[in-house]
């Protein structure tokens, strides 16, 4: 019974995770500039991958596997923001302008 429930939960988590990934992909297609796209990639994407890890933890029923899945989730959370930060900063410093929708840019102002 527990197993069945776990399977259902796992399945739903999987689907949500995959959906997040698709949404993230749509996001990086639809959003207007680099910086806004980054939001989609660095968190929605991370959520997508992270949720599949959680799904594994749910359906595995094997101590080490569960632990590893959770550790994997933590690794994701640790590394994802680093890349995003570095890329955003580099793009800013290298002079990639945000889209015209952007009204406020205190970072650029600070560099003047």
């Amino acid at each position, binding site marked *: 019974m527990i197993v069945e429930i776990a399977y259902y939960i796992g399945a739903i988590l999987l689907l949500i995770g995959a959906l997040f990934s698709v949404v993230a992909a749509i996001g990086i297609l639809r959003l207007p500039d680099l910086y806004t796209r980054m939001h989609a990639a660095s968190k929605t994407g991370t959520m997508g991958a992270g949720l599949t890890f959680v799904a594994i933890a749910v359906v595995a029923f094997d101590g080490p596997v569960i632990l590893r899945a959770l550790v994997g989730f933590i*690794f994701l959370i*640790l*590394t994802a923001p*680093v890349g995003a*930060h*570095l890329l955003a*900063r580099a793009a800013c410093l290298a002079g990639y302008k945000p889209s015209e929708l952007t009204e406020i840019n205190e970072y650029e102002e600070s560099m003047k």
Partner: protein
Amino acid sequence: MKTVIFKTIAPALTAIMVVFSIFVLLRGHNEPGGGFIGGLIAASAIAIYGIAVGVENVRKALKFDPISMAGFGVFIASFAGLLSLGQSFPFLTGLWGYIPFGETKITVSTPMLFDIGVYFAVVGTIGAVALALEEEDDDK
């Protein structure tokens, strides 16, 4: 690339990656992984570390010249192969030993030593290349 955020988190990431690489190395005989993959992860750790804190610091931290580490890797891998000479077996014959430790046994084997050699060869070489290239950028 010396931002506060990166500089602060990179050492932790490096440490985790090194630990993970050793994990991948040691379990390679039974699960995906092994010396090569482990070595690549460790080399990535070195590369990240170098980008974050500067090559000089990494070199100091490593203490050994990475190429020397690579040489060491090839050396002990060959050495692992030679151990079977004593048992009158051909080159690279796997020898297995079990050291009792508490209730479990610790397995020691020449294939494992060999894989450790692979690990070092990869870490050393890729690390050396990454550091040297980063240095190129930093110094000039």
